[in-house]
């Protein structure tokens, strides 16, 4: 049987009787089995998914199925799913089960999506290669020597290899877009506050968004439409009405498109990535879009701002993992301080510990103003300047990542350099605007290259339409 990937195809095939939810799930389970060595799933809910598929097949027969009937979804191990294990790929949450489903998870379940398992990721979403998982690295489906990107690496590989049709990940600085680029799938980070964070393990609360990984824009748009919107459990979520993203993708309008010139002149940019990006820009011009270079002089400040603020928030967000109430606790012999030290030192991996310490440092009384306060001001500037760009342009485009997927262990001796992998994705995170990564050809080794499109706040609709327009102009 030909592998169906888009929900439209799947639903059509189910309608005509060519397949069923059960067959679709079985096919995903086969792919999971076949790609076990990639370590994309921490746990597969096989029996549960099959049972769910049977029920949904009945619902479909009765004409009562939800909008996501036939879709198989993977959950990054930072999303709460009631009565299922949840550990953020960390030892510190070993044995923990969530007592509730997050809003996004509940919403896809209500629309009859089938959750097939939880995906491996960098511990607490901290990393760009998925090598920071306490449960082993995830490997890229194109080349198992290569990383899949991170932190939603397991989610990206699961979608890449047909283990599921879509995955919900989280994106704090590029954690959905960067792995999407490395694996050749589509990764959306919506506007900050577009999707409720209720049920998303916090890394850096003012940056965290749930992100969506799919193989096509339609599925991405539909999932966004289902999970976005106001929520009584999250006071920071936007009440902006959710439009019908799903009916919109694909149009033939011409847009004003700006590309940040500095990103293409950056010395760390891989030649093939530069070449493909320039080709894409040329292609956009040929399509009739107005394409112009723009300056963004604050680019150098984006990454430091991001790391100061996210580590500050993380140091506080991760304080709750102390071994007192749940999760792993060291067999301590000693006073309270040593109890904390032992539990947290053995529970958290090195990268997480590093970020907690960094964050504690930037919030400490003596350095607060020099780092935290200043970074807040710079963030405001970056937001304002980024938003200004959208008074002149509909979209800003740039490569998703400076390079294609690198080999496992490349940054073993110089972990800070890996932070540069997020160089092009953090601007949207710092600014809170929506951004999407779409495939843009391959490099000489056949590794996928990502093309990133950023739009103004809450313009996911435009973003989707433009992305679809680029990916598949024939749909129009």
């Amino acid at each position, binding site marked *: 049987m030909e592998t169906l990937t888009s929900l439209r195809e799947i639903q059509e095939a189910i309608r005509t009787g060519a397949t069923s939810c059960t067959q679709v799930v079985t096919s995903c389970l086969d792919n999971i089995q076949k790609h076990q060595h990639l370590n994309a799933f921490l746990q597969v809910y096989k029996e549960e998914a099959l049972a769910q598929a049977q029920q949904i097949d009945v619902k479909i027969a009765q004409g009562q199925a939800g909008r996501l009937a036939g879709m198989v979804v993977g959950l990054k191990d930072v999303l709460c799913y009631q009565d299922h294990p949840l550990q953020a790929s960390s030892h510190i949450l070993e044995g923990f089960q969530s007592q509730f489903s997050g809003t996004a998870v509940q919403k896809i379940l209500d629309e009859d999506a089938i959750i097939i398992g939880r995906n491996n990721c960098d511990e607490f979403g901290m990393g760009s290669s998925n090598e920071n998982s306490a449960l082993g690295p995830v490997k890229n489906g194109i080349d198992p020597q290569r990383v899949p990107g991170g932190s939603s690496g397991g989610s990206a590989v699961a979608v890449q290899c047909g283990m599921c049709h879509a995955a919900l990940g989280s994106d704090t600085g590029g954690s959905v877009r960067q792995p999407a680029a490395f694996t050749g799938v589509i990764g959306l980070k919506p506007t900050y506050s577009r999707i409720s964070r209720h049920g998303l393990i916090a890394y850096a609360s003012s940056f965290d968004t749930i992100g969506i990984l799919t193989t096509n824009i339609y599925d991405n748009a539909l999932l966004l439409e289902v999970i976005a919107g106001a929520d009584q459990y*999250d006071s*920071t979520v936007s009440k902006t009405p959710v439009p019908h993203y799903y009916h919109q993708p694909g149009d033939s309008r011409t847009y004003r498109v700006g590309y940040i010139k500095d990103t293409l002149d950056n010395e760390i940019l891989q030649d093939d990535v530069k070449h493909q990006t320039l080709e894409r820009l040329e292609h956009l011009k040929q399509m009739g879009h107005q394409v112009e270079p723009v300056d963004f002089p604050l680019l150098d400040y984006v990454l430091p701002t991001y790391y100061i603020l996210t580590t500050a928030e993380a140091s506080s967000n991760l*304080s*709750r*993992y102390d071994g*007192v*109430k749940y999760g792993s606790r060291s067999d301590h012999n000693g006073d309270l301080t040593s109890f904390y030290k032992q539990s947290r030192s053995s529970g958290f991996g090195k990268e997480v510990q590093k970020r907690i310490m960094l964050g*504690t440092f930037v919030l400490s009384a003596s350095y607060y103003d020099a780092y935290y306060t200043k970074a807040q001001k710079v963030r405001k500037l970056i937001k304002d300047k980024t938003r200004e760009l959208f008074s002149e342009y509909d979209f800003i485009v740039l490569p998703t990542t400076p390079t294609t997927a690198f080999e496992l262990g490349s940054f073993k001796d110089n972990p800070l350099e890996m932070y540069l992998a997020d160089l092009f994705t953090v601007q949207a995170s710092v600014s809170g605007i929506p951004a999407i990564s779409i495939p843009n050809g391959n490099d000489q080794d056949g590794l996928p290259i990502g093309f990133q499109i950023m739009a103004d706040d809450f313009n996911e609709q435009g973003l989707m339409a433009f992305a679809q327009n680029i990916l598949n102009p024939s749909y129009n």
Partner: protein
Amino acid sequence: MDQEIRDKYQAVIGLEVHIQLLTRSKLFAGDSNRFGDEPNTNVSIITLAHPGTLPKLNKRALELAIKMGLACHSTISQHMIFDRKNYFYPDLPKGYQLTQDSTPICVGGKIGIATHIGEREIELNRIHLEEDAGKSFHPHDASESLVDFNRAGTPLIELVTEPTLHQPEEAYQLLAEIRKMVRFLEICDGNMEQGSLRCDANVSVRPAGSMELGPKVEIKNMNSLRNVRRAISQEIERQISLVESGHAIASETRSFQEKTGGSVAMRTKEELNDYRYFPDPDLSPVEISDHWLQQIKESMPKLPHQLKTELQKDFGFSADDVEFLTESPEMYEYYTQTLEFVKDPVTALNWLKGPIRSYTKDANLTIADLLLSPMQVGELIALVEEGAISFSQAAQKLLPELLQQPHSKPRDIAASLGLLQIRDENILEETVVEILKAFPDKVESFKNGKKGLLGFFMGQLMQRTDGNVDPKLANELFSKYLN
């Protein structure tokens, strides 16, 4: 301490008062805010800081905090955020406390207190909202500590005064006034023993006349008004003794010791945490609309000092009497309800501060615990007013019996106890005539000038009627037959 030495110094005192708000649920979670439940029964996943949970602000807590601010003439912040105060302790589930560091809900303000030199207004620095921590227990015979998270996340306001108090008595008066205010506002039960009202005192001393502040010592764990006064008093003397003997005062936190009235050091300033305050990114900024603020203003009840002024103006009561009637909202309420059944405000007052107070005091009750309704008290008073029973009979016999049978009518009990005075003139007249017939010689003596015999006749009458006679009426009848 020698008064002469004491007078060489001035104490500077500031109070931090924690007031637990009477909301149904917690500050950021839906679980119950109830004291005294089984440990760890009011603990939702938000309270326990499960991964993926977010706080949600309780609007009612905001409203109660605003009420306190309005009562204190504070400026109400209409735009505010919550900050995280970061520290590790097992009873703090998130590893940080949500509080207001940079934008307290109420800024400034003042509270009037009575002092020996007259009325004083104590300036406030701020009132802010925050969540409480859980409770840790360290049993002596166990190797492990225990934590109860029922209290974790319950709403508090912290009222911080400016350091402008100078006498332990002023601190006592201020705290007493705050306790009254929160009770009249119905935002807190004001129970210091159970910890719903807690007070920390910052105390320093300086040479009289100096403007510089001495090193500050914070005293915690005083669980009654009286202990706050004791603790501050002893702390002032401790500090003066140190200075007098040439020692430095350590800036530290000390814990009050109930037995001695003194305190022991808990931690020094150097050991204080760096709390790394920063705005909580999980809560959106809070806006208080003009409309809502206006609604809260309109819902404000009268406060003790307003009621005192009214009582003095309307009835001419003394300062002590109005103090007594406004000592708690229950007392004031009881009094005003009693007035619905009793015409004379003074009579009602005298009953409350006389027989009823002595009963509640002996039984260790408050007026709120009294099983008698104001209506019953009104009926009791009416019996006396109409002359059906004497005041002393009512206070000494009827009231105690009524308290034993709180669901009965006073008149019925008085009747069953035979306390009702015979007011039927015909019955009384017969008895009077009988007595006079029985003692013709004494009648003769009376008529010859031995007027003192009236007492004898009255005695006879009392004997034959078990004392249930209206003395005035009896007097009139004897006069009629003897003169």
